[in-house]
């Protein structure tokens, strides 16, 4: 029995927790690993797919909905294009659109949330009431509305989804910020007269990364869903682009004779969503654990 080794142990553990401590803690949950494996698989297909695809996505290789054609694995789609090729090509658009809209939405939401939470007063009121108005629109309905008025454009898909994420992220980050603002180190920075933007960027932001990462994961999951649904409803990417959501829509009439053209993109989207969800879940559990001081 002696204290020094205890101290060293604690210090060692603490050192290990630094630099991606949240990821490390999340990795200990089995669900996170499963999530990473599933997500990794789909991302791999989407990224490597276009390079290994046997044909180009618009090449006709079979008759519509024909299966068992020589030189194809899963047959042809509604126009007779190779299903495997279109599947391999159709993922990266979804990933980029979902990633970009989630990233932009979380970025904007974080800025709004930190500013509202730190400055309070009328700035907080204005930002949060605008937020409430945006929150009143259901995500998908708002997206469909804007698309049907302006027409389906790629940048618009990203913008609409990002805007619909912003108020939701802002709410969470604002609450996290308000807890941090009460801490004396923020007061200490004020006491030496540090500019407000620096206090927000240097003192507050690094201390809300826990909820921030969880939000990012969550918003990514939602974005995947919304982008896929928009594609399915014909409001997303337009033919002849190879896109998983679009593929499901185009091929659903022939689902009985040519199930692959629907099953493959559906399965990919499902696996991706479940994987991203599992990672988010692991992250949020780890964040809660860290906040409560367990799992150190």
């Amino acid at each position, binding site marked *: *029995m*002696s*204290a020094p*080794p*205890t101290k060293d*142990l*604690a*210090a060692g553990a*603490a*050192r290990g927790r*630094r630099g991606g401590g949240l990821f490390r803690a999340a990795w200990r949950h089995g669900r996170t690993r499963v999530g990473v494996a599933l997500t990794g698989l789909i991302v791999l297909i989407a990224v490597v797919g276009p390079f290994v695809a046997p044909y180009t996505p618009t090449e006709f290789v079979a008759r519509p909905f024909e299966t068992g054609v020589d030189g194809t694995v899963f047959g042809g789609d509604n126009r007779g294009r190779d299903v495997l090729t279109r599947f391999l090509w159709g993922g990266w658009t979804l990933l980029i659109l979902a990633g970009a809209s989630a990233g932009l939405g979380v970025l904007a939401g974080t800025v709004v949330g930190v500013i509202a939470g730190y400055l309070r007063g009328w700035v907080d009121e204005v930002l949060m009431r605008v937020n409430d108005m945006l929150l009143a629109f259901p995500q998908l309905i708002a997206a469909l509305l804007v698309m049907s008025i302006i027409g389906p454009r790629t940048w618009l898909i990203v913008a609409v989804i990002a805007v619909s994420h912003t108020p939701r992220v802002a709410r969470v980050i604002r609450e996290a910020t308000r807890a941090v603002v009460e*801490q*004396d*180190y923020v*007061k*200490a*920075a*004020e*006491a*030496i*007269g*540090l500019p407000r933007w620096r206090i927000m960027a*240097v*003192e507050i932001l*690094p*201390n809300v990364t826990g909820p921030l990462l969880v939000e990012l994961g969550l918003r990514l999951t939602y974005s995947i869903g919304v982008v896929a649904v928009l594609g399915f409803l014909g409001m997303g990417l337009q033919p002849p682009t190879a896109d998983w959501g679009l593929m499901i829509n185009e091929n659903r009439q022939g689902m009985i004779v040519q199930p692959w053209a629907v099953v493959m993109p559906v399965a990919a989207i499902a696996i991706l969503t479940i994987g991203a969800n599992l990672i988010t879940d692991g992250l949020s559990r780890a964040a809660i654990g860290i906040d409560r001081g*367990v799992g150190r």
Partner: protein
Amino acid sequence: MTETTETVLSVEGLTVIGRPSDVTIVGDVSLNVRRGEILGLVGESGSGKTTVGLALLAHRKRATEITGGVVEVAGRDLAALDERGVRALRGRAVAYIPQSPASALNPALRLRVQLCEALHDDALSAAEVDARVREVLREVALPDDDAFLGRYPHQLSGGQQQRVAIAMAFVGRPDVIVMDEPTTGLDVTTQAHVLATVRRMTREYGTAGIYISHDMAVVAELADAIAVMYRGEVVEHGPTGEVLASPRHDYTRTLLAAVPRMRTDVPDRERDGDLLRIEGVSAGYGRTPVLEGIDLTVARGECTALVGESGSGKTTLSRTVAGLHRGAVGDLWFDGAPLALNGRRRTVEQRRRVQYVFQNPYEALNPRKRVRDLVLGPYRHLVGRPDDPDRVVAEALERAALPASYADRFPEQLSGGERQRVCIARAVATGPDLLVCDEITSALDVSVQAEIVALLRGLQDEGMALLFVTHNIALVSNIAQRVAVLERGRIVEYGPVGRVMSEPSHEYTRALLADTPDFAPEGAAAD
């Protein structure tokens, strides 16, 4: 008064280890307490005293396990009890008074509900329960009328909350009562009341008390016997008088020496021109006035102490000086020039020369920054980019009595005392003339407090003026030259420490002095 010599609590070889690391948290602890007696369990943070206290309730913290030893309460072995037996035991055979009454009382429940809940005895009728609850409230000197029982915890003061917690503990007439630093958050006047209540109740009920504390002065006043814990082991155990008079273990001697002694012989010091002048400052929160018409000066190189109970406005005053409090009016003068009440309107030079150290070192350091960046942050902003940042950090750490190697650590790798030293290093790095210290030792152990006070005295010798806020009047006599006593936002007494301590003119000051535990062990009387 129950006069028996029956041993009601006996602990033999209690061992608690951590899981899964197998670190021994408490090793081979043996204690005995008789009816009507109080045992003071003394030690610094991390010495395992709370772990021992919880083990007496057959409770353990997360990831710990009781691996050895026998705990007997009134002849029953706790280890032999199942879950149901433990539930029956808690509250009736063993009761617990937690450290923070504010968090121990359920804010959503009225006092009546909480007190009746504590007396979970099915044999009693509702009328009997009610009568018992009222009886125990009278005993802790609280009102027993329906209006009081209908209140919520937030409608009570801190002292009242703690007395409710005591009432909850005693309502079931326990054999043993475990008190985990119940007066830590209270000011001296309230502390004196609570201690007197605890003393009287244990005597009247014939309850064996375990009083856990890091403050030797409190324990010396209250306990019949003292057990000193150090690194998970009891290093000294004996009657209070004996332990105080002739401590056997080195650690006990350190603890005794760390208690600030009330000194009345503080010599007056030549005053060397005003550095800070506060004129007619009033402040408040919303419409509630907290400070009214404060006049105060701090001379160069002088330490002025602000003393008062919680709620007296001393923290508000110190924050006003630091430019952190919104809604203050009045005039501040610093080194002959006006000092804006709003910190943002001050010149960079003024901000550099007035530095602030916060009460709670656990909240005052950004957990995402290394010590090096924490110390350099204010320096870069107020002084400029240093030519040799490493030297700046090393010098600041050295002035705060920390090794330069600490620069690479994160706050969570430091103890409470080390954190507070980093806060001081951060403040002194910019070379201030006035250091505002807001109860900077109240979150720390007494032994660490002594080190911090020695450090501050050293800084003062280098010419720094201090505005030292505290509720501990004994500490004042050890560091300050002048003292201002605050009561409800007004300064009721202000003068040289020697005079205020020896001939206080205001009755509030006299009450404060009388309520401070008088600590002068015979063995240490020599110094």
